[in-house]
């Protein structure tokens, strides 16, 4: 388990980044008759990408994620993760995937935070010294070394989530699947986590699939975004900048673009010469200064 997950053999079809997740036109019917139909665009994730799944409440983000994890089995449509159908061959790929679900309470398994983070490596039979080293590394990554000896059940909501994340990261998975990882985190922790995910993607090539409502962070934390409409259709995909330009489609999907995007849109409405949307503060400042200078020049 000490080998780099990226060396794992996979079936790369093209010279570009290999496809890690592929979902096409999935339909899921829950027992009570509620149907989620994730059709429209295909949901494709390539190695090393950080992909955000956006969509209003009840649009099917969690349902999609459960299918990726083989927790639900599709009647219609195809799901492939790391080259296999997760509903059939989950045990084969399990060790390569790290997971944090939406409700973290029930994911904390052990009597102390350290034991909890050590759960997977121990179950996979790693030597104890390596287990301990990995646990410390994972706790440090999330800045929760001080919670090490606490009892997970006594932690605050956000602290629990960080512990669950540490437990998912400890195996250095090649694919991370996170359902609303930012829920309940304070803004500083969000930034920390976003930075961490970016570092994982660049340094280890970790692929990340996450659902989120935190639109404002999406430009920072994802390379690529999919947007679900109410009812589940996948209606938009692209880089965050591309996606947030399509304000109309977004509005249909009950999604508000990030504040900066809104600001620039409003500015554009008020002043024809307004700058093009910029989605990070630095770029926005640049754009605004340029806009002012330009107008100063012309005015």
């Amino acid at each position: 388990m000490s080998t780099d997950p990226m060396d794992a053999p996979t079936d790369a079809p093209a010279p570009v980044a290999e496809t890690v997740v592929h979902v096409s036109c999935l339909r899921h019917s829950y027992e009570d008759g509620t149907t989620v139909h994730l059709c429209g665009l295909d949901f494709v994730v390539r190695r090393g990408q950080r992909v955000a799944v956006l969509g209003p409440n009840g649009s099917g983000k969690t349902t999609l994620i459960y299918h990726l994890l083989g927790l639900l089995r599709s009647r219609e449509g195809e799901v492939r993760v790391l080259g296999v159908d997760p509903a059939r061959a989950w045990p084969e790929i399990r060790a390569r995937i790290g997971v944090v679900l939406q409700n973290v309470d029930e994911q904390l398994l052990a009597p102390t935070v350290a034991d909890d983070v050590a759960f997977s490596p121990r179950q996979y039979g790693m030597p104890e010294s390596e287990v301990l080293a990995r646990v410390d590394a994972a706790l440090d990554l999330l800045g929760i070394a001080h919670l090490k000896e606490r009892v997970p059940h006594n932690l605050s909501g956000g602290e629990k989530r960080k512990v669950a994340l540490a437990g998912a990261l400890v195996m250095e998975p090649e694919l991370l699947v996170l359902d609303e990882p930012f829920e309940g985190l304070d803004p500083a922790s969000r930034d920390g986590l976003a930075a961490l995910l970016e570092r994982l993607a660049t340094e280890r090539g970790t692929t990340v699939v996450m659902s989120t409502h935190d639109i404002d962070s999406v430009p920072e934390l994802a390379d690529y975004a999919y947007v679900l409409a109410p009812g589940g259709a996948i209606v938009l995909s692209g880089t965050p900048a591309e996606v947030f330009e399509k304000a109309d489609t977004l509005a249909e999907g009950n999604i508000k673009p990030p504040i900066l995007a809104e600001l620039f849109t409003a500015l554009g409405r008020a002043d024809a010469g307004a700058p093009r949307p910029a989605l990070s503060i630095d770029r926005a400042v640049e754009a605004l200064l340029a806009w002012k200078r330009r107008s100063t020049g012309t005015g």
Partner: protein
Amino acid sequence: MSHIHIPDGVLPFWLWAAGWAIALVMVGVAGRVAGRSEARRKVPLVGVVAALMIVSMSSEIVPIAYHVNLSVIGGILLGPALAVIAAFIVEAVLAMLGHGGVTVLGLNTMVIGAEMVLGWALFHAILKVIKPTRAGIGAGIATFLTLAVTTTLVVGIVWIGGGGEAAERETGALDPSTLRFENPFEEGLFEFGLFGDGHGDEDEDAEGERYLSVGRFALVVYTLGPVGWLLEALVTAGIIGYVARVRPRMVFEGALAEEMARIPGDETGGH
């Protein structure tokens, strides 16, 4: 009321030993059967049902002598094979907590297991004649009947074990003389009993009834029983009616249905 709250040592050895033997065979067979199907993914359900039964058996509704068992609910949700395993687990945990006793664990498993299996069977029999929308009522009826039968089973067990001289032999030391304080060096210098009648060997002939009065037990069980059965039936009806509406397959198929969350491949996984 059908759970035997008989502590250890009340029943004769042959009876509880036989209970253990039967229970082990039941669990063994059930394990086999469950193992053949895709049992692994039902483990959390077994866990929850067992836990619910333990919780409910440990919380009273009516101040005295009644608590919900939820055993019929468990039977309906788990189906016969897993029900027996759940019964065993419930009794093992309760025994570990001193509620029920270790020697009578086998008998208790038998009774609760029988209750769950019988409840399941009756429920499905009743389902043949009523509409699925009335599942709750069906479950209620099944519960009442089941409890009537298993309570009789319990009284039978107590009767078998309670009257004979075996009990006397086995429970030998239950005697107020226990409370006599005697000086080991000066025998008979001072002695007294906490409850006044501290002279244990004066009424030998009355001893049999002192241990366990079967008649009184049966009386209590059969007078309070029906009230308890009715309450249990109402609770069962409510819960099963609810689950039947929300997760119909859990009730009608008695196990996890196709789409329900699980990790596939587990049937082969593990060991």
